[in-house]
């Protein structure tokens, strides 16, 4: 990424402003001490203001650049993740809610880490050294003092910081688990109340919350030790520099003076000293972003890859196919379907009808057995909640075959019984649709999906519950349509509609 690291440099450049401010302050106070003119003091004050403005520019710049770096990362991630999320059909794909979490919250967490933590971390190594170098120009002993406090600081951080990091990670895991428990219990409150178990469940939930709180406090004790180490050395470095400079000015050092320090240098060094640990304090402040970002990165990395499409064939052939995912198992299913015929996959909700349909479409790899199926270009799919893109009704119908002519569209629309709906709209097929299909009912949307599959005019038609959400008459009409279409192409439907099952040539019961 091109502008990567610019934010880190901007954070480091903050030191320049700090140095100018310190120099202005030291000069102005020196002028005052020496009884200098107002003009000298004013120029010192002007330098202080300049330093302040430069710091403003650096910090605003660093945060804005940091945001842009995070945005670039997020854009790259989305370009890769969105198609992958859309390609994960069937049980191996994340659930709908989880898809949104991955696509929004996890990317946002990574984005925040790139925007807030990474630049600060980058500057945390160079900025303190830069401060020490600037201090050394005025007093190399003071610079040495600063650097010397760094050694016990690093040792302290290795001990306290390591423990704190583990503690912080554990704490996050505990809090996540507690939230999951509450979400689960709240979702199931109706059944909990039904069994009059609310007291027992509420007591247990309250105990779990208290437990986690108590454990979190214990864990935080450790975590805060590491920030105390940081605070201590930050304060100690200022104190040591102040005492050294004061005694040096007084000529009371317990060792022979190794450098001559004037008031201005001493004050400059003192004012700049707190900047030495500031980058590390910023780093500590952004640690939470790092944690969340890492957890998100791991979750995104754990996302499965889309399965390979099975061998291309002229017709559908399943031999002993078993589709498995944790806690579930479909099959074994065997099926041979030529160029025509209606196959019904039937079974209760949750038995894997849709997943088997996706396996037949070549979108889900079986764990056992062999599948041969048509290439994707020869398959049409009419889903439970058909896709609606924010364009016109006509375009939505033509998603499977953009070049389809109006006649084909009209025929399909009346075949599924949507002609009255189209006629009711003033704009007809040019009526605009938003992606949640505000003015379409569930049954109309389902029939739109079926019409789209017919317009696509493919050799194999897969339909998921084509008659659900429909009144009796409409359902009969769809069943008649499917049986007549089955004379021209191969059709496989997943359904628990007994009338449709009765019309099938072959039934697969799950």
């Amino acid at each position, binding site marked *: 990424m091109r502008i990567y690291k610019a934010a880190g440099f901007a954070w480091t450049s903050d030191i320049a402003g700090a140095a100018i401010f310190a120099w202005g302050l030291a000069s102005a*106070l020196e002028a005052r001490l020496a009884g200098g003119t107002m003009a000298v003091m004013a120029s010192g004050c002007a330098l202080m203001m300049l330093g*302040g403005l430069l*710091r403003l520019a650096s*910090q605003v710049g660093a945060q*804005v650049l940091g*945001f*842009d770096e995070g*945005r670039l990362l997020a854009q790259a991630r989305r*370009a890769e993740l*969105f*198609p992958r*999320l*859309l*390609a994960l059909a069937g049980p191996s794909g994340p659930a*709908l809610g989880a*898809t*949104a979490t991955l*696509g929004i919250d996890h990317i946002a967490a990574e984005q925040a880490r790139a925007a807030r933590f990474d630049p600060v971390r980058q500057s945390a190594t160079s900025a303190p050294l830069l401060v020490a170098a600037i201090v050394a120009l005025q007093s190399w002993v003071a610079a040495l003092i600063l650097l010397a406090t760094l050694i016990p600081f690093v040792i302290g951080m290795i001990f306290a910081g390591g423990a704190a990091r583990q503690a912080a990670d554990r704490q996050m895991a505990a809090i996540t688990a507690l939230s999951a428990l*509450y979400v*689960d219990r709240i*979702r199931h*409150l109706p*059944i*909990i*109340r039904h*069994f*009059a178990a609310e007291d027992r469940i509420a007591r247990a*939930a*309250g105990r779990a*919350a*208290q437990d986690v*709180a108590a454990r979190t406090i214990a864990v*935080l004790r450790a975590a*805060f030790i590491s*920030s*105390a180490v940081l605070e201590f050395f930050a304060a100690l470095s*200022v*104190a040591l520099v*102040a*005492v050294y400079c*004061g005694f040096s*000015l*007084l000529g009371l050092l317990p060792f022979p003076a190794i450098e001559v320090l004037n008031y201005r240098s001493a004050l400059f060094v*003192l004012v700049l000293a707190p900047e030495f640990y500031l980058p590390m304090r910023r780093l500590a402040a952004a640690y939470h972003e790092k944690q969340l970002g890492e957890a998100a990165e791991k979750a995104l990395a754990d996302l499965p890859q889309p399965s390979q499409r099975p061998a291309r064939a002229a017709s559908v052939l399943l031999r002993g196919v078993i589709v498995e995912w*944790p*806690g*579930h198992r479909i099959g074994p299913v065997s099926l041979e379907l030529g160029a025509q015929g209606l196959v019904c996959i039937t*079974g*209760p*909700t*949750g038995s894997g009808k849709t997943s088997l349909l996706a396996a037949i479409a070549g979108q889900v790899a079986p764990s056992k057995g062999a599948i041969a199926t048509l290439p*994707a270009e020869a398959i049409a*799919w009419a*889903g439970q*909640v058909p*896709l609606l*893109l924010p364009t016109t009704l006509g375009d939505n119908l033509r*998603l499977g075959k953009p070049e389809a002519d109006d006649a084909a569209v009209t025929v399909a629309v009346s075949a599924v019984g949507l002609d009255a709906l189209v006629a009711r709209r003033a704009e007809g097929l040019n009526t605009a649709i938003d992606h*949640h299909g505000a003015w379409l009912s569930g049954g109309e949307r389902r029939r739109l999906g079926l019409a789209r599959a017919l317009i696509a005019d493919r050799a194999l038609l*897969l339909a998921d519950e084509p008659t659900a959400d429909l009144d009796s008459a409409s359902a009969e009409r769809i069943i008649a349509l499917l049986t007549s279409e089955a004379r021209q192409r191969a059709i496989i439907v997943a359904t628990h509609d007994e009338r449709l099952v009765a019309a099938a040539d072959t039934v697969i019961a799950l």
Partner: protein
Amino acid sequence: MLAFMAALAAGIGGLVLLAVSGWFLTGAALAAGSGAAAIAAFNYLIPSAAIRGLAVLRTAARYGERLWSHEAALQALAELRGTLFTRLAHADSRNAPDLASGDASAKLIGDIAALEDLVVRRPGIPAAAGTVLAGLAAVALAGWLAALTYIAVIVLLLALLAVLPQRLSTAPAAEAAAATAALRRMLVDYAAARSEIITYGLAPRVTALLVAEADRIDTAQRRLARIEAAGGGLLIAGSALAAAATLLASTASTPITALAVLAASASVEAVAAIARTASREAAVAEGIARLRVLLALPAFEAPSPAVTAVPPDAAQTVGLGTATFAPGSRIALTGESGSGKTRVLEALAGMRVPAHDLTLDGRPLAMLPAAAIRTQVAIAPQEPMLLAGSVADNLRLARPGIDAEAMERALRTAQLWERIARMPQGLDTVLSEDGGVLSGGERKRLAIARALLAERPWLLLDEPTEGLDAGTEEALVGALRNWLGVHGTGLIIASHRAAPLGLADVEVAVAAIPRAAG
């Protein structure tokens, strides 16, 4: 209080450390310039000891502040979670806020977590104000003019930081929230149509739509980031301004001026805590408003009476429309799918507002308190509604004091014992969210076992044999018939399969039950 004191000590400690150091250095320089006698007279021991002492104090105070503010927040929040949950749990399912969707409940948890942030910060505000006052006191040593300019700078910064960012960010924050909600809906909608997207090769087109919406979020967020960054930048420039103004306005000696200037510069940092909390308060206000809906639920007073097994003579009649059924009756609800069978069962279970004319013991169901309904019916709902926990936890939900033997009997009746006994952890097998390791049919049967264990006069079964092969279905129906006979339990069943319907003696068409008035 402890957290506040510690925060104050930490803030003032940091300020005084730098200020005293500046005063000490200047004093030392002055003494050095005035010759050996002045050096001998200059008391360097007290300030140098103070400087080191302050370093330690500041560290200890920060540690205390963090620990105590988190301790208070975490305990308060744990209590709030408990209280909210208890109130929510004791509400009536028929009119309680609907949080059944994962999204709604997750949002509730998120709101509570956002509150935690606020509670952690709260002791910081008075402490920050205290730090600013300490800064003012130090600056006042440099004369009233310096104090006035310092006050002017602080007031200006507070006005700019507490008001402006909030005002400027209202529009982009709303835009970012709207775009995020839209993207979430799109992702869910499009993910539901994955198979269609793959088949028609629409992934590039859909990705472009998603990316465009995500860009809208980023654009709004970028404006927010700039506003936040500008706030931080203003603060650092304000700190320089406060220092410069104090220096120019000072009428005191140079050592005192050095003290005042460094105190002015360092104390401005505390304004950030005030400003940041002010802007966060606005962000969590919406969450708090949502929580208020729950806090408005009646306070929970006494534990609801535990429902134990109901003696047969306490069994009541059930009325479906005009027909009244004596305890022990076995009724099949009939009707096409979508005709409202599930609705009737859930209403009888007290889980939903009845849409039909239903009575218990001759009294309309809608008039009865939930506690009265509960003593009579136990449901195995269509969607099994299993809790995350072990198999035993789920069975224990039915009634307190169920032992392993009772669980085994119920699981045997539900034709699930063999499966559970085969699992290495047996009854302690942990089910993940929504029953994870069990198949759809097995989850259903666990819900049946749970309903049996409640031992209430009426058993409600909604599609009990879905997902079963014929053999298991036959065994389950046989075992249930036996169980109903032994316990004299009444049955109301909805199913589209012949075998379980055979359990019933009488059929009631849902369409024939009059709709409830209103």
